[in-house]
């Protein structure tokens, strides 16, 4: 399981060239599908790029690794463009139930190697990833009955 909070600011290394090619700025989250689809990579000369989740070879304690530069690309869809323009932040986001009750804030999000969000840790409780309804700038919304 991968903790999303541990990825932020990690170097992205291209193992085929043994080169640092950027750093992780933020995960790109498709809340309706309960999954992380990629990483927003900054620290590159020509602006932020998207690293699709499937293109990542390894998630280590010191770096995220890719094999070659082919995986990185410009944002392609609304979700990715929104992330580049300043999308909602998942870690430390306030968490609301869809009944309108504040449940807490996101301490950690644990993701399966496939990118599926397994669980959202609020510190005093854990919400399954399947309970996620939406993620916006105001809050992460989860099902009240989860």
């Amino acid at each position, binding site marked *: 399981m991968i903790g999303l909070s541990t990825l932020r600011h990690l170097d992205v290394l291209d193992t085929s060239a043994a080169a640092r090619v950027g750093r992780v700025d933020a995960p790109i989250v498709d*809340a309706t599908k309960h999954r992380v689809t990629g990483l927003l990579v900054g620290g590159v000369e020509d602006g932020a790029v998207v690293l699709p989740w499937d293109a990542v070879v390894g998630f280590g304690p010191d770096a995220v690794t890719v094999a070659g530069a082919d995986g990185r690309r410009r944002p392609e869809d609304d979700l990715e463009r929104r992330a580049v323009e300043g999308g*909602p932040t998942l870690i430390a*986001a306030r968490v*609301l*139930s*869809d*009944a*309108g*009750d*504040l*449940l807490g804030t996101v301490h950690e999000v644990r993701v399966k190697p496939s990118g599926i969000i397994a669980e959202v840790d609020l510190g005093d*409780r854990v*919400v399954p990833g399947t*309970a996620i*309804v*939406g*993620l*916006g*700038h*105001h*809050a*992460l*919304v989860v099902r*009240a*009955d*989860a």
Partner: protein
Amino acid sequence: MVTATTPFVRASNLIGRPVVTTGGEAELEVQDLVVGEDGRTISGLTLRRPGILGKRHVGVLATDDIASIGTDAVMVADGRSFGPDERELAVGHDLTGRRVITADGTAIGTVRDVIVETRRGRSRIEGVELVVEPGVSDEAHALLALGADATVSAEMIVVRAGAVGDLCTDPEALVGSVAQLRSRKASS
């Protein structure tokens, strides 16, 4: 997972509450309640948009379009848009300041807030908080369940005879009083 919260809320506590889409965005907040012609049913909420230059009214959210009213937010479906609406014509039934008098002619007090039941599919004024008339109670302020037979006019609210005995200060007692009046109504 979620702790059950009371479905009763003070209207004044709803004002300023964020209106959040299921997508997690919140650009608007509650400005006021829209009370229907009967003086009891909440037909909608007026909304405002906070901004640098103040808070600008944007329209009305009909009760039917509210997914849920929680302790921290009013939830609406993602993609819902708000604009000026003819239902705004129904605005103006603010109950605060009205006198509450029993059917046998005792003035109990003046409304300073209303208590709304916000259970899903039901938004209705079920009680009032009063500034109590001198001599009616030891308390300066008290809560009163209205009951189904309360009559609301532009001038006053007329409640059942003997309602003075139902004045309370504990919100839980108000909830009990509402339930008691409902069961009494159902059995009559």
